[in-house]
């Protein structure tokens, strides 16, 4: 079991949990958190290289590093792991954000130990989800990732934290209720006595009528986490109240679980229904894209702006997935990466600004460029990434999505593609509105003039993220190939390509 590298994505966090449990002071906690996340990052980087090597050497299985360990033998539930390019991209993303999140919560207070314990439990869920290919294990890790949010927001959050934490948890769990039913339904209706999604996809034996019933549930179940309209309402409140690292991890990684799940489970296993019912969700996600952007235009709280922006961007992910072609799918995964990184950057910066000014209301701030140029410049870069400036990650992802979506010749798809394209303008509006209000112009509050610029750990965190954002933006083909060339043969069959 321990000869499989993937298992260490769960083992390392478990060791981190132990380490933090045994730590006596803040320095030790930080050491464990940073060392552990570095180890995870190293592991994912190694995995990336090794994976590409294996693929280049001709490994053409849909998933590599496969491992199966029987768990509940009677139900044939296994701990099955395996990764393809998409999972690796997600693992890489998660470890980067965990690392930067650890830096961003350098001075977390109160109860630092508990904070990191929950944060790492959350990351266990995330990593476990991305390496699993067994529906049961996947679902279990999915829920593991959800529940620490309640405490993380509830204890360390700000504002209406109790309400938001409760709303977030209940809505996400509501989604997972649908999901659970759908997964059990898939298991029984596939008739394979197997939870392994590769086998189910291969057999494609789910009855078409049942697909029509199970697909919407799976899609909605994951869609809630992917902030699909009208189930997105947990996101603004939740993000607004969450502490920095949690916002980063949640918007950066957890919301990606939704998109990943929609792709991996809903569409992969039920292609017939995906084809038949895509239009419903296309409308919903298309609305998400524009709706989130418009909503962001009038918000005054930085985190709300960003949360609505996430609704819009994540809506684009689901939107692209529903286009059911490789290009759009590639774009969706790139958008996940891109959005994960840049939104984490955003939330990190907002946390840093909030830590200094003690307000997130853009009406009460202004001219921060003069006071804290480093943070302001980073914010601007994040903003540019978000509005899709070439050279940063947002652009390549969105363009891939648009080109891919336009490939779908159905009129409805075309119309919604054009509607979705409009988001690039609206995004520019709200991003520049914030930049203009917050960073530029005269200093609003004279008391702010004494504030300091970023400290070294804040710089580490932001620089890491910016480098990643720029890397994707400058060398997109590397990532596109990583994702595209590893679409397993089944998916091509599914999509009729």
């Amino acid at each position, binding site marked *: 079991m321990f000869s499989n590298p993937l298992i260490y994505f769960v083992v390392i966090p478990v060791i981190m949990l132990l380490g933090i449990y045994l730590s006596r002071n803040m320095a030790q906690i930080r050491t464990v958190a940073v060392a552990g996340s570095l180890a995870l990052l190293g592991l994912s980087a190694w995995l990336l290289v090794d994976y590409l090597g294996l693929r280049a050497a001709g490994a053409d299985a849909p998933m590599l590093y496969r491992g199966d360990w029987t768990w509940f033998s009677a139900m044939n539930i296994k701990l099955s792991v395996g990764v393809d390019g998409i999972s690796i991209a997600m693992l890489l993303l998660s470890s980067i954000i965990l690392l930067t999140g650890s830096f961003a919560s350098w001075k977390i207070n109160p109860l630092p130990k508990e904070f990191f314990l929950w944060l790492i439990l959350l990351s266990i869920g995330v990593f476990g989800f991305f390496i699993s290919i067994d529906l049961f294990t996947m679902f279990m890790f999915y829920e593991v990732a959800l529940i620490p949010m309640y405490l993380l927001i509830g204890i360390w959050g700000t504002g209406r934290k109790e309400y938001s934490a409760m*709303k977030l948890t*209940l*809505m996400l769990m509501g989604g997972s209720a649908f999901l659970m039913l759908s997964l059990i339904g898939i298991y029984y209706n596939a008739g394979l006595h197997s939870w392994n999604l590769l086998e189910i996809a291969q057999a494609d034996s789910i009855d078409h009528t049942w697909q029509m019933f199970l697909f919407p549930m799976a899609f909605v179940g994951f869609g809630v986490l992917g902030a699909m*309209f*009208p189930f*997105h*309402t*947990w996101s*603004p*409140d939740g993000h607004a109240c969450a502490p920095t690292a949690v916002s980063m991890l949640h918007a950066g990684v957890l919301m990606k679980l939704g998109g990943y799940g929609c792709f991996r489970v809903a569409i992969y296993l039920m292609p017939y229904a995906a084809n038949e019912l895509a239009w419903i969700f296309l409308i919903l996600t298309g609305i998400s894209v524009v*709706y989130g952007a*418009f*909503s962001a*235009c*009038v*918000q005054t709280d930085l985190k709300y702006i960003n949360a609505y922006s996430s609704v819009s961007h994540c809506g684009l992910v689901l939107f692209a997935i529903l286009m059911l*072609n*490789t*290009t759009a799918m590639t774009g969706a995964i790139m958008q996940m990466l891109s959005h994960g990184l840049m939104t984490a950057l955003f939330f990190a910066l907002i946390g840093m600004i909030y830590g200094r000014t003690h307000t997130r209301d853009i009406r009460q701030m202004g*001219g921060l*460029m*003069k006071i804290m140029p480093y943070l302001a410049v980073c914010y601007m870069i994040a903003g*540019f990434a978000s*509005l*899709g*400036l*070439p*050279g940063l990650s947002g*652009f*390549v992802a969105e*363009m*891939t999505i*648009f*080109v*891919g979506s*336009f*490939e779908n010749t159905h009129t409805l798809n075309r119309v919604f*593609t*054009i509607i979705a*394209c*409009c988001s*690039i*303008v609206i995004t*520019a*509006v709200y991003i*520049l*509105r914030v930049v*203009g209000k917050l*960073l*530029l*112009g*005269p*200093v609003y509050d004279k008391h702010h003039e004494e504030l300091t610029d970023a400290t070294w750990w804040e710089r580490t965190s932001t620089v890491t993220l910016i480098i990643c954002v720029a890397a994707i933006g400058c060398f*997109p*083909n590397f990532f*596109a*190939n990583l994702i595209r060339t590893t679409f397993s043969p089944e998916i091509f069959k599914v999509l009729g390509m």
Partner: protein
Amino acid sequence: MEPIIPILILCLPLLGFLVLGLLGPKMSHKAAGWYGVLSIGTVMVLAYITAITYFFSGAPEFILDGTRLQYVVFNQDWLNFYKDLTIRIGFLLDPISALMLVVITTISFCVHLYSLGYMEGEKGFQRYYAFLQLFSFSMLGLVVATNIFQMYIFWELVGASSYLLIGFYYQRPSAVSASKKAFIVTRFADLGFLIGILILSYYTGTFNFTDLTGSVLANGSSVNNLITPGVVASLKFGGASFMGCSLLTWALVLIFMGGMGKSAMLPLHIWLPDAMEGPTPVSALIHAATMVVAGVYLVARLFPLYLMEEAALLFITVVGAITAFYAAVVACTQVDIKRVLAFSTISQIAFMMVSLGVARPEIHEGLGYMASMFHLFTHAMFKALLFLGAGALIHAVHSNDYTAMGGLRKYMPITHITFLIGCLAIAGIPPFSGFFSKDEILSACYENNFIWGAWMSMVAGLTAFYMFRLYYLIFWWDEPDYGHHKPHDAPWPMSLPLIFLALVSCVAGFIPFGEFVTWNGEPYHIHINWVGVAIPSIVIAVLAIALATFMYRKKNPLPDKVAKATGALWTAAHHRFYWDEIYMFITHKIIFNLICKPIAWFDRHIIDGTMDGLAWCAQRLSITIRPLQSGNVQSYVYVYLFGALLLGGVTAAVVLL
């Protein structure tokens, strides 16, 4: 051709941006400034070498049987979508890109040099140079694009660097809002561009310019006769149409929409006057000479495609003609000298657009195309000259308004002479460069349709009038009180570019432009139609100048009277025909108040309310059924019994009936 020089042309400015951006704060002003100047100077030399090689080496890859060819120096895959649909980053050499290389690097170099004096001592000097370098990089990338998506990428980048430079004085709210406006308006236009690209690329399966336009070019000069039906079909997307127009028309019009945004065509022009909030050298570089002509360049780049859809060309012509007239009228009434120049820029770019719009292969072998490019070239020089001159004036009197100027010819002779040369050039007085290019444009217009010719002649007259109005108001008119610090000519880094550009404006007209740049690469021999076009337009220009002299040479009440007499028209023109107010109304009142706010309200109250409402319902329900648990054991038993009987009764009824 070795790719090393082209790569350096692109990389040096990028490197400059990174070095100045990252290390700038640690550098002295002087070091940063000179680094920038040297960097762009090197690029200029390299660009000249490239252009000269292209035009004059006569190598078979550049010219074949007298026809100039498109030559792809390098083309690197950047992002592959599907099949052959790939974004590449490359370097395309052809007449117009070589021309643009020269124009951009020249103006950019002048501006870099000029800024050494103009921006001296400004806070953020290094940042300024970094942005200039970024802009130069993006603009160069744009003009050498080998495919439409590369163009789009750099198109966005120039937009961003324009944003950064307009907002350079970021503590000034007006600069911030101007930069925002510029970005958003052009972004909106880019939406059209993007959709156009999507349509075009989906149906043709390629982004490459050589594939898109090459087939047309390869089949000879006369599109309508010689293209094989198969090529037409593939480019016309098999006859697909939408709302009465072919999809190709839609694609081309949408792409042109991107050009309308960048080139400030009506109704997307509103950002350009505001963009004057940026430092004046920036206005000279970006908002007069280079970026704003990107739209023209885009149309020129895809010109063979446009030829296939005359409807699209007609659209361009109409938009250009209206814009040209509108901007010229507004320019007559503005107070801020930079705004006058801005509107003049809009008007002149519209000239180029019209020229492209009226160009047809059968009319003087596509004269309009050549004229447009010619005008682009000369306009870049004299408009940069005018802007830099304006910068020197502003530098001297610390105000943008002509009311603060007057009689400056005595104090600032170099500025005066160079500015006058610029005015003469733009007014179309021979032998200055503007005359030649404008003359070609008017010829093309007249050849296409008399109406366009007459209309554009009128605009040319207006141009001469407002430019000399400006000239007189600055350098003659009445001298305000300058106090102790009399205005004086600028230091040499600022004067040198002025003199250089003035010289260029004097002689550029004699370049046999048609030998180098034509729509299909075959040389065209310029001949001036003195009787039909040139003489009348000179006469119009002279008359207009005379009128301006009469009205503005000395302080007199005539201008006020004229303003009063024309009343509403003058006020409207002064307020730029209320376009800003209309936009304000649409964006704030309609989009912000009627879309964004209701959506936000809907989200908070309906969507969120539904979720909270579900919770509330559960709570209410919980309270409603509370009496069930009354505490009295007999009521419990009632419920028990009732439940048991109901269970049995209903089941019996269902099962047995």
